[in-house]
């Protein structure tokens, strides 16, 4: 018993084979697809390893699932996540469909700087001493807080990752937001414009997506990217009518279930225009498979000095991240994930979008005491007595 994580569950033969047999898919052959360590269904990377790890033990976004990123305020962290997602798709030579934005969007994708593992290698080298050696099978299940990428492949691949990446293609890559992605695949992205129409503005989009999926060979993997859904500068006012937007989401769900192994979607939505307390947004959420809410801290740039970075090496969190729904897990009933109910904080830096457990920073103004205390370890007993 002690040999397994208690809540990971023993996937029994019946369970696993059931999942696999239904996911009749060209999974093994496609790059960027790997079976979930949880139940063997095919998953793909979101382009941000720490987001992959958050997804209920699947270490990736399961195919055929939609993830909705909601963002409060005027920042655009969700846009960064979306760009990672699109860039990862480009690098994996998947077919990207971008809805509603002009083609410039495609030129702003972050530049490739290697595989996610190689980046993590560099990072973890620094703290190799403190890192305990643990069996690889746990590691790939996704361990949080340790700062180690759970999405890592078995050790055999890690050693090979540097040179012979052709032998086993990487699952997730690292990108640099300040660079621009140059890859042959970029020209292959398709941009679906919003055409003004009398009835649903989404009808044309759906038709296009359907056609693309239908006409492409069965081993092509697709990604659907929808930046700032219902943003009034992109979408006509009629788009936010429930009979339009909810029918679209329902049809998208239908499309996903018709091609359960070939397509994923990531959608962002501005919560400052469409608050979560409204019935419309709740229905959109009910129709998506994963819901992630970003709550950026106000003016995080000003408070860098005083916010909760434990050490100067780590960057301070820029906001809170909430998981309201996770793909597959909640469809089954929910609740049994080790990551559910945690408070998460996210940090967007040049090279990564990192999600860590959130801990309250020490009270502001207490920094002196904090600084004084750290070098000497615990304050001496005499300091405490009065």
């Amino acid at each position, binding site marked *: 018993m002690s040999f397994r994580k208690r*809540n*990971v*569950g*023993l*996937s*029994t*033969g*019946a*369970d*696993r*084979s*059931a*999942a*696999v*047999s*239904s996911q*009749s*898919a*060209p999974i*093994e*052959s496609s790059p960027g697809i790997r079976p979930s360590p*949880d139940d063997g269904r095919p998953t793909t990377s979101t382009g941000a390893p720490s987001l992959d790890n958050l997804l209920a*033990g699947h270490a990736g976004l399961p195919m055929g699932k939609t993830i909705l990123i909601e963002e409060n305020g005027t920042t655009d962290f969700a846009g960064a996540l979306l760009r990672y997602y699109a860039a990862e798709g480009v690098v994996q030579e998947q077919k990207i469909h971008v809805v509603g934005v002009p083609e410039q969007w495609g030129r702003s994708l972050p530049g490739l700087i290697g595989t996610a593992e190689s980046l993590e290698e560099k990072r973890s080298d620094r703290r190799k001493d403190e890192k305990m050696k643990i069996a690889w099978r746990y590691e790939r299940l996704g361990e949080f807080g340790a700062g180690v990428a759970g999405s890592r492949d078995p050790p055999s691949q890690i050693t090979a990752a540097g040179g012979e990446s052709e032998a086993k293609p990487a699952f997730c890559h690292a990108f640099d937001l300040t660079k621009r992605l140059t890859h042959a695949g970029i020209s292959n992205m398709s941009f679906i414009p919003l055409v003004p129409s009398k009835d649903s503005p989404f009808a044309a989009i759906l038709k296009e997506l359907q056609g693309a999926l*239908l006409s492409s060979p*069965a*081993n092509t993997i697709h990604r659907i990217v929808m930046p700032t859904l219902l943003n009034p500068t992109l979408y006509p006012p009629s788009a936010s009518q*429930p*009979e339009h937007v*909810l*029918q679209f989401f*329902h*049809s998208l*769900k*239908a*499309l996903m*279930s*018709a*091609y*359960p192994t070939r397509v994923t979607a990531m959608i962002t939505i501005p919560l400052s225009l469409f608050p*979560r*307390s*409204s*019935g*419309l947004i*709740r*229905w959109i*959420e*009910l*129709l998506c498979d994963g819901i992630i809410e970003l709550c950026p801290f106000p003016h995080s740039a000003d408070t860098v000095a005083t916010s909760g970075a434990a050490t100067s090496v780590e960057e301070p969190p820029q906001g809170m991240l909430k998981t*309201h*729904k996770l793909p597959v897990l*909640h*469809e*089954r*009933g*929910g*609740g*049994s994930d080790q990551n*559910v*109910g945690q408070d998460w904080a996210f940090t967007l830096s040049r090279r990564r979008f990192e999600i860590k457990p959130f801990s309250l920073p020490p009270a502001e103004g207490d920094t002196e005491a904090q600084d004084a205390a750290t070098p000497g370890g615990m304050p001496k007993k005499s300091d405490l007595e009065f």
Partner: protein
Amino acid sequence: MPSQPPLPPLLTPYLSDLPESSLTVISSVLGATSNWLVLRYLHASLSNTANSNTSPENNGSIGRTSRKVVLVSFMRSWDFWKTEAKRLGLDLARLRDKRQFVFVDGLSELFTPSASAFSTVPVGSANHATLPLRNRPTPVPGRGPPAAGSLDRSAQDRRVQGDASNSVRLHFRGRGTAALDAIEKDIISELHRQRASSDENEELLLIIDQLDLLLAATGPGLGIGATEMADWVMGLQQHAHATVLTIAADSPLIHNAATNVHGDCTPIETEHAALALGLAHRARTVMQLRMLETGAARDVSGVLRISRGGGWNAEAKHSLDEKELLYYIQRDGGLRVFGRGES
């Protein structure tokens, strides 16, 4: 850990023996979905004739009438129900072949104009898949199916996927009650087909999963409101022995309208609240799922509150206790149900 029975004894009285023309409403929220409970209803109604894992004599309670089930699902695909039911040891595909079970697909083509090629693609990809699948090493030794078995299975799957396209798909065309009538006709014809193929003492259970979607995605703009939907349900109820509905009861969908006296809310909220509450007034039992108030816990998935609805008949001989229970869905699909403070 010991494996759990598919139906926890605490729940069994609520899942089986639904009285005639009764309505059961399952309400769910975003973080506490109702699929597992629907699966338990399926299991309670279908298992005694279908469960191959347990012998019929120790499972089927004596004298219980066998049932037929029609499942109408607006939010989830046939694949989902089939896979999840298999985890409970229920082979829906086989039951469907035996006409014990009928799936009505309200997802695939409800709003999208039918793409004729939809039906051919899954078959093709299934064909494709058999090759790598067969070469795959069996993931878990011991309990996994032998190679020959998996071959059979994939062959069977292909056939099933082929006839998945044969299952009735609902279409919403036009507007208003006429559009609803067309959907109703499709479902009723399935109910009648089931009725016709069954003998007298077989009870027909109708399960409609998330019919509220139909209202949300159409709404007053298309001439459909809570009254029309409730009427629609009434029409279907007349053709089934008992009816189980699932409906969303998230706070934004209920409380924005129900507790706001100023009428300052959107039509989607008003209509949804009117439908959900109206159905609760008609229901015999309301099974309310929600998350723990105290935040997420590692070994609790949510709270199930079982209440009598407005349609509860005090004189009926079926007694029913109102209860509040905690439940926990394990990774392997097993279910544990327990009272507060127990484990």
